[in-house]
């Protein structure tokens, strides 16, 4: 694993994978949209609104997955001081926050016709909202210091601390018997839904997963460029200072 901790080597692999992720994500998205909107049947009870699921559930799974990935990257940064882990976490944060937001908004739109309300303070919904706040807090803390490199460690620590929320989200529907339904995907004895619906859900999960990862790679490239620029500018400044010192000495002489 440490072999890929070298940012340049990691980036070479990531750059090679990027077009594949984008292509696969695009193809899966088209297939998933076709399967989800046209080929799969409507629900006997929720009718056509069930199709919101094909965006809602993948976004929810990926929002949690991205947070977990962010925490892992941050932990590896704190433990082994690999800057790559921190850069990955920074690149993933806005993508994960967007997924979390998509999950909450689609959930609200889905909730109105099926539950009769956009929002309830159900345990699952509340813990998902906390996840969005954690994403916001992470991004705010990472950018809150005048010296940008000072924000890395506090933000990484926050990401690791916030991981306590992930099992709370996962088990909230089992511990607290509230409005949000239990998982049908990871239910005992396999997923309990129509195979056509399951196919649509899996296609969309793959599509969103590949596209979100591709976006994170593009953002990672940007983060690395920022770091390189900062290092270059830092070196330049030092160089300027040095030449100025020389000039200063010459004039005083």
């Amino acid at each position, binding site marked *: 694993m440490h072999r890929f901790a070298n940012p340049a080597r990691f980036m070479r692999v990531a750059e090679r994978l990027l077009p594949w992720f984008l292509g696969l994500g695009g193809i899966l998205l088209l297939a998933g949209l076709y399967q989800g909107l046209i080929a799969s049947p409507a629900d006997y009870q929720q009718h056509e609104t069930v199709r919101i699921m094909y965006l809602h559930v993948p976004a929810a799974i990926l929002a949690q997955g991205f947070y977990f990935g962010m925490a892992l990257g941050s932990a590896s940064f704190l433990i082994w001081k690999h800057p790559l882990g921190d850069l990955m976490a920074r690149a993933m944060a806005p993508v994960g926050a967007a997924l979390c937001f998509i999950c909450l908004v689609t959930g609200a739109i889905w909730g109105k016709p099926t539950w009769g309300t956009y929002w309830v303070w159900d345990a699952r919904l509340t813990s998902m909202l*906390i996840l969005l706040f954690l994403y916001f*807090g992470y991004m705010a*803390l990472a950018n*809150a*210091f005048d010296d940008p490199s000072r924000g890395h*460690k*506090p933000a990484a*620590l*926050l990401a690791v601390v916030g991981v306590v929320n992930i099992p*709370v989200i996962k088990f909230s529907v089992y511990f607290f018997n509230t409005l949000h339904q239990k998982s049908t995907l990871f239910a005992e004895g396999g997923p309990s839904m129509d195979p056509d619906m399951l196919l649509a859900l899996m296609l969309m999960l793959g599509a969103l997963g590949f596209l979100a990862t591709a976006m994170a790679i593009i953002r990672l490239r940007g983060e690395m460029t920022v770091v390189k620029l900062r290092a270059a500018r830092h070196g330049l400044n030092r160089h300027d200072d040095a030449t100025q010192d020389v000039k200063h000495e010459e004039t005083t002489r």
Partner: protein
Amino acid sequence: MTGVFLTILKRDLLLTIRQSTDVALVMAFFVVAAALFPFGVGPGPETLGRIAPGIVWVLALLAVMLSLDRLFQQDWEDGALELITLTPAPLPILVLGKAAAHWIGTGLPLIALAPLLGIMLNLTETAYPILIAGLALGTPSLSLIGAVGAALTLGARRAGLLMALLVLPLYIPVLIFGVTAVDAAVAGFSVRPHFLYLGAILLASLALAPLAAAAAIRNAVE
């Protein structure tokens, strides 16, 4: 180790007593903010009594949050924090001592004032002991989780606002079980499960928060 803990506890308590206006200000906020609610939601005793536990808990959360800058900010500014980290004693123990002093200086007065707020907001009589016990079990967690937020934002721009964004989401579980305990008591159900949750949160934050806060402090004084 207990010696170091007691030393730092004594030092911070002494500072709290010397700067007792800080404590008084937080307490004044607690009471004045509670006095706003009768104007906001109407002075009907029924309505107020119904939402009183929630108001007391939310205000306790906000009061603790507002006092968090006392934990490390001043020591960080005058350099004392750097000296504290240089002692051979384990830093998490020192953080624990500072958090304990913070709780004695903020949590305890809040608990003492809670019955006054209960009277102001027409809280049901049976709810008082549960509210007090819940606050006693919950506010130490608030100090401990808050120590992590205060340590993380040391030296940040707009540290106070940032701290609110970081700490308040993490306070939500304490708020939920603190309020549901009172609601259960009023409705005649067992309060045991809610208190067990509060106790679990306290034990978890007692074990983990000092470590996280210590790591953040080390980064801040580097």
